[in-house]
């Protein structure tokens, strides 16, 4: 363990952690303001906002010697005996001067800038700037430049931190952005004819410390102080990025990546970021209805539960399709509910949409080809009940062999069902369908029951990504009227007491299914690695292969 002093506070750290001055100070609870440094990008030390006094403590005499000049904290590796002074008059003056310089040319158009409210320039000016502006006011507008399908640049708002440039070089590997001209004339630009249209481009808006880069999807829609952020998980692919859902009055306005060193670091892809509008689509299925001789009969919440229960009990022989868009808890309750009525009911894994190949980026980010969030979790739940995981294609065959008379179909695919080749074969068998889905499909016409399902942000629960990391998230918004979250519906169907609590259902899952053992107890915001007990075995050197054998040994 090494020891450093930050404003007189002793910080213990491990030199192998490769901390820099900013991170070191953060451990002491001291904030060092910075623009250009970002934990996910290389260090350039160009903004000069993080200048501090540094010195070294002589281990023998205890004497501290400060360097005469101010040094950039982002470029100072934490080492034993390092002393940082971040609040002295000299440092404060340097910060105020940097702020003053940045604001000489910065347009004063905060009232119409989307970043206002979460802008570092605003925050730092308030905390570290001069009390009074000495330069004349102005300019009041910024030139605007279209630089990509999703991104627009407000040229004059830029403070030349170069985060965006480094991002396109280091993380997306596409290098569309560059700095043109020199000195006061420096500007961010693209090479003519090569707009920034890569799949990670949305991230440059998040990492821009000011409002220079704007997201066209979000531009001018809301002020950020109206938004409430809720932790969530992106359901657009099996990577399962941690995200924030920014919502105002039950309407999602944007999605942002949530830092998670084990999954997505600080980033997310455009496929996930701009997918949310389907949540508010007017086409969504709402309400519950049952086929009647002359069309449909609408059901309310209590009669739905009662009718479903009677219907299932009357049909006796059942089957279910468990969608990989269900949470672990919902999948478990669905399997339990079906098997409670018919202990030998076949359960199949719903369609797993696959598109192209995995897309990998130089910065380590990967978009999975599997476009669903919870295949692993649902597979393990099904395997727990029936010992294997049949794909949805086997459904007609299984239904025929079992003589099932009713099939519960959970869908919740944002883009609708990809494949329904098995539907004619199933229809021939004349089984009754219970469809719990987001959007109308060919299934609804043949269904006995059609029930509206919630979208990802409208339900709480856990997802297991393709690397076996389980993340538990709360609901971000309330579902539209007439939508029945699967968890609550099944909870009532099972005749359970009280309200549906995903957390306690997950504990039941973790106790009953060995794969989920690591999920016992509280789940941290970054999730838990369900392979962790297997890894312990692997590290002992007994088993290298992380297949099912090690599961049994672990």
């Amino acid at each position: 363990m090494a020891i450093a002093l930050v404003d007189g506070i002793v910080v213990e750290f491990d030199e192998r952690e490769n901390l820099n001055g900013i991170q070191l100070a953060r451990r002491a609870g001291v904030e060092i303001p910075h623009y250009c440094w970002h934990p996910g990008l290389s260090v350039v030390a160009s903004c000069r906002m993080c200048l501090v006094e540094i010195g070294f403590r002589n281990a023998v005499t205890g004497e501290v010697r400060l360097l005469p000049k101010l040094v950039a904290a982002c470029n100072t590796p934490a080492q034993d005996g390092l002393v940082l002074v971040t609040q002295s008059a000299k440092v404060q003056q340097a910060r105020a001067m940097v702020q003053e310089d940045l604001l000489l040319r910065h347009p004063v158009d905060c009232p119409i800038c989307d970043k206002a409210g979460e802008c570092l320039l605003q925050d730092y000016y308030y905390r570290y700037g001069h009390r009074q502006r000495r330069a004349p006011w102005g300019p009041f507008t910024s030139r605007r430049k279209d630089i990509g399908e999703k991104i627009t640049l407000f040229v004059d708002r830029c403070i030349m931190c170069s985060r965006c440039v480094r991002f396109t070089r280091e993380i997306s590997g596409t290098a569309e952005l560059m700095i043109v001209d020199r000195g006061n004339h420096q500007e961010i630009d693209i090479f003519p004819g090569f707009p920034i249209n890569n799949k990670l481009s949305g991230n440059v808006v998040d990492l821009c410390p000011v409002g220079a880069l704007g997201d066209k999807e979000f531009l001018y829609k809301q002020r950020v102080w109206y938004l409430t952020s809720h932790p969530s998980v992106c359901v657009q692919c099996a990577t399962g990025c941690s995200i924030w859902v920014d919502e105002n009055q039950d309407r999602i306005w944007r999605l942002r990546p949530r830092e998670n060193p084990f999954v997505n670091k600080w980033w997310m892809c455009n496929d996930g970021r701009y997918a949310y509008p389907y949540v508010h689509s007017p086409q969504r299925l709402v309400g519950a209805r049952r086929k009647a001789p002359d069309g449909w009969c609408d059901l309310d919440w209590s009669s739905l539960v009662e009718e479903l229960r009677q219907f299932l009990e009357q049909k006796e022989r059942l089957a279910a399709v468990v969608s990989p868009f269900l949470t672990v808890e919902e999948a478990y309750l669905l399997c339990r509910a079906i098997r409670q009525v018919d202990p030998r009911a076949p359960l199949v894994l719903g369609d797993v949409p696959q598109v192209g190949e995995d897309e990998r980026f130089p910065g380590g980010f990967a978009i999975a080809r599997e476009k669903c969030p919870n295949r692993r979790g649902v597979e393990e739940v099904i395997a727990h009940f029936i010992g294997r995981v049949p794909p949805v294609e086997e459904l007609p065959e299984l239904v025929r062999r079992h003589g099932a008379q009713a099939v519960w179909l959970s869908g919740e695919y944002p883009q609708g069902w990809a494949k329904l080749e098995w539907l004619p074969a199933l229809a021939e068998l004349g089984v009754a369908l219970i469809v719990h889905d987001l959007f109308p499909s060919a299934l609804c016409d043949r269904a006995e029951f059609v029930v509206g399902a919630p979208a990802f942000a409208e339900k709480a629960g856990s997802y297991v990504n393709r690397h076996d990391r389980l993340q538990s998230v709360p609901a971000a918004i309330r579902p539209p009227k007439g939508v029945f979250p699967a968890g609550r519906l099944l909870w009532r169907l099972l005749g359970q007491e009280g309200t549906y609590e995903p957390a306690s259902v997950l504990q039941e899952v973790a106790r009953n299914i060995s794969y989920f053992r690591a999920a016992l107890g509280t789940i941290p915001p970054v999730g838990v690695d369900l392979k962790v007990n297997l890894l312990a075995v692997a590290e002992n050197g007994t088993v290298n292969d992380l297949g099912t054998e090690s599961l049994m040994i672990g």
Partner: protein
Amino acid sequence: MSQPGTKKIRWVNETPLSPIERTYIPLVVQGLATTIRHLFSKKITVQFPEERYQPPDPIIYRGVHRLNRDEKGRVKCVACFLCSTACPARCIDIEAGESPWPDREKYPVRFTIDMLRCIFCGMCEEACPVNAIELTSLYDLSGKSREEMVFDKNKLLLIYDWTKDAEPPLERLIAAVGTREVPGGQSPPEAPEETWPPADAAAFDRVAERAAEARLSPPGT
């Protein structure tokens, strides 16, 4: 705040009434004197609606809002949401969009004020960085439905058109009076007389009449 048990608490006893006071006659006489004095003094009530109360200074009166226009006749608001942020009654609802004009970035696509929820505090007027929203001196506000009382952008602009002569927008007032920020923090110079149109009763009645017409027009016009 004194804590219980500290010496700072002083107990005050009710003064006992004298025998004459206990008859209550002096108090009754005192009360009646007040009543009679007001019977014969100048009335401060008016016979509304035949007579109309006229606010002494319509410029600072806090009545129905208006949305000002800029020199080209476009809505002046830049859709910064600061008024709706400042509003304690949460009654301003704005939907912003990219402006169709080259010299402006952002403008309000939709701008509604729910007059039933508004408490006419004037915070919106104070918050606006471009003096686009102002409270006029129109006060007799009624409607046949709740929807009618939610004023939209057009209605608010219309109110500007009606009131702009009788109650000039703040910029023009400032231009007339001189700068607001006086160097050295001295008090502003005396306003030169009659530099803006006086709020004459006739102009005021015209405004009120047109406002009455507006109430008859269907909501959302």
